[in-house]
């Protein structure tokens, strides 16, 4: 029998102080980004901010500085550029809260056509988002995040007890914030696909936490003179191999997606790749620790068997 993780007996709960430090830092980054978003300073994608993006595929690669110069001459000094190394592909983004009737996409193409007559291009994609749609997509995304959190907390509260539900939700929120913060530091933009990735990550991370909680609940039902902390440690250790292997197989497909999935899905897959590392960490170190540090009267599951 091949085993990556043999039977372990690690004192995860005992390391909760370090974990809370690391997590505090991750959450701080995330919250900082959220504050930036609320203040309108974050790097929002055009689907949220409104604007135009045009992806051109040139016959020969165009120097990014030259492209910037051409765009500036064409009146688009504020354009953001992204190149895809080794290809003639160039992504131009202009964030303006203008109406689509202003032909930004056409003007960008005209600027390149005029400046580079002997390097023809095909238009890979054009996306124009009016400001009202951007606002609506922001609202929809916010609503989706809120509702899925309420649904999840409710489900876990019913299946376990309220403090597990809250702990799982906080741990999940922690993962989402961490990835959001890391992405902001990496200078990536916050768009609809990133939100999708974050919500998927929420689902995955929760899944992970629930498996751990399930085992802890099972152990609580037949514990013998163990403290809650010991029961938790035992549960986490018991499911540790499953946690690692599932993370590993998911990471395998995500690496494939990052490497070969194409430019559209690259950042999406990258967010999940980072997210699953954080999610695995949080389901081991953070979620149960949160139940443990919760002071107050224990609920039905923790309480049972303590007073037989």
């Amino acid at each position, binding site marked *: 029998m091949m085993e990556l993780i043999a039977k372990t007996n690690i004192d995860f709960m005992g390391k909760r102080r370090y974990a809370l430090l690391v997590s505090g830092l991750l959450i701080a980054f995330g919250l900082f980004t959220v504050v930036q978003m609320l203040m309108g300073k974050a790097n929002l994608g055009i689907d949220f901010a409104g604007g135009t993006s045009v992806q051109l595929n040139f016959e020969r690669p165009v120097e990014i500085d030259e492209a910037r110069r051409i765009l500036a001459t064409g009146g688009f000094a504020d354009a953001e550029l992204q190149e895809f190394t080794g290809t003639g592909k160039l992504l131009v983004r202009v964030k303006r809260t203008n109406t689509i009737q202003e032909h930004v996409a056409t003007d960008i193409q005209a600027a390149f056509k005029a400046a580079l007559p002997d390097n023809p291009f095909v238009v890979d994609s054009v996306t124009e988002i009016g400001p009202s749609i951007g606002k609506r997509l922001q609202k929809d995304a916010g609503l989706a995040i809120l509702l899925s959190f309420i649904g999840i907390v409710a489900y876990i509260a019913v299946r376990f007890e309220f403090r597990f539900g809250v702990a799982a939700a906080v741990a999940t929120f922690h993962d989402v914030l961490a990835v959001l913060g890391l992405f902001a530091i990496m200078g990536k933009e916050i768009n609809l696909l990133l939100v999708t990735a974050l919500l*998927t990550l929420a689902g995955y991370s929760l899944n992970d936490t629930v498996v751990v909680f399930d085992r802890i609940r*099972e152990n609580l039902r037949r514990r013998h003179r163990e403290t809650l902390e010991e029961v938790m440690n035992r549960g986490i250790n018991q499911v540790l191999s499953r946690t690692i292997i599932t993370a590993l197989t998911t990471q395998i497909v*995500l690496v494939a997606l990052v490497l070969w999935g194409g430019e559209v899905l690259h950042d999406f897959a990258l967010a999940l790749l980072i997210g699953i590392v954080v999610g695995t960490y949080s389901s081991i170190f953070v979620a149960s620790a949160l139940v443990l540090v919760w002071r107050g009267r224990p609920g039905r599951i923790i309480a049972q068997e303590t007073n037989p």
Partner: protein
Amino acid sequence: MAARTPSSSKGPKASPGRRAITGRFLAVIAVGLVSLGYFLPSLPPKLVPASIRGMLPGEGIHLGLDLQGGIHLVLQVERDVAAQNFMDRTAEGLTGQIQREEIEGVTLTREGDYGIRVSTGGSADLREKASKLIEDKYPLLAAAPGPEESLLITPKPDELARVRTQAVTQAVETIRNRIDQFGVSEPLIQQQGEDEILVQLPGVAEPERAIELIGKTAVLEFKMVDEEARLTPGVALPPEDEVLYRRVVDPATGQELDREPYIVRRQAMLTGDTLTDARVAIDQFNEPYVAIEFDPAGGEIFARVTGENVGKRFAIVLDGNVYSAPVIRERIPGGRASITGSFSSAEANDLAIVLRAGALPAPVEILQNVTVGPSLGADSIRAGVLATLVGFVLVVLFMLAYYRLSGLIANMALMLNLVVLMGALAALHATLTLPGIAGILLTIGMGVDSNVLIFERIREELRLGKTVRLAVDQGYDRAFVSIMDAHMTTLITAAVLFLFGSGPVKGFAVTLSLGIVINLFTAFVGTKMVFDWMNARRRLTTLSI
């Protein structure tokens, strides 16, 4: 509360007999085959010959615009303008009616967005007459008394609502008409919300042209040029005149060079409502122009007005822009005219289409345009398929190396997962998008999870020294709760994404939620069946896991 042993809630079931296993086996095979039948038509024709394709159900998986290339537009109908236009026309009709009824001394002016002010010069008698006229002939208008014995006429709320609603449905019809004439296969045109129209044009890659074709209001008017009036700074134009411009465009670059002003009568002598046909023709200089034809009533008016105005010019105005202003040489009978301008043949063709399909009841604003070129779409399919295959093969190899024979069983379940998911997508007419492919890939990664949970639990039970049969049964039983909980939480997220997501989010949610449900099925029916079958053949003492 009494303590419960974990097995008391769901004690290990006795392993089913051979016949039951065969039954389940046949059921799984049947599900797999049906799914395969629905999925196969999605493959390129060279992989699935036409003879086989003919026997298969459905048309395969429908690809989203991001994969097959095309244009996705969201338009907003400016309903307020539609309502204002309606009141403009009502005011004109009312003026005519008042003249016919010979109510002298009354003037009508439009007031605010939807109001018409009837001024009577302080005569209560006139107000009484006008008020009675409205009451008798215009049941959908309301008249309220105002200062100096005037009347303020407004549409009744129901009528206003009707005009606004109708503007959207009429715009949908007009746009559908235009697109049908343009010739796009499988277009999608539908109303969305109160005042939006969603237009999807698969395979079309020129957004500018499509927007021009769909978004042009196309109100065609023929207006006499006022030859006496001059544009002098500081001197107001006569009230019945207005200034319109003709755009002078460089035919090579499409850049606007100049705007040439025309002073024309506000009142159009003829409008596009009376058109019966519009088509592209070529003149003696080999330039394309649009030849139009009026219905008999329109043709008569055109003949009369041109006959009365020989030597003067009339302006052909489309959406407030002057296209040309030819001099009338003689009376033009027969109800034919032509619109010239320096058109390219595509422009002339599109103009003919919009004129034939009729005008939009109100201008539309483009809220969103997402266009994916065919090459990027093909790239995305290639990348998505490659990433899926590589990810799938790597996971399969890992499972095989780690769990041996049990891994092989899990891999078969995974394969079944993928086939059923593809079949379900095709059978349910779901649209597969690029984020959808990512969703499939993710369900592969997570689909293994159920098996990992079960196998790890079986290993634990085996370590406790239990027999293979007991370990397998208890492993499945005890993993069941975790698998259910884990899937339910992910399903909650996926369902919310599906209900509230838009565009890319929705495509992702579709495959993810379908994948999760199918995964539950294969984990509990598929793999358990194989273990039971192995156990039923002979009592296993060791298990390759």
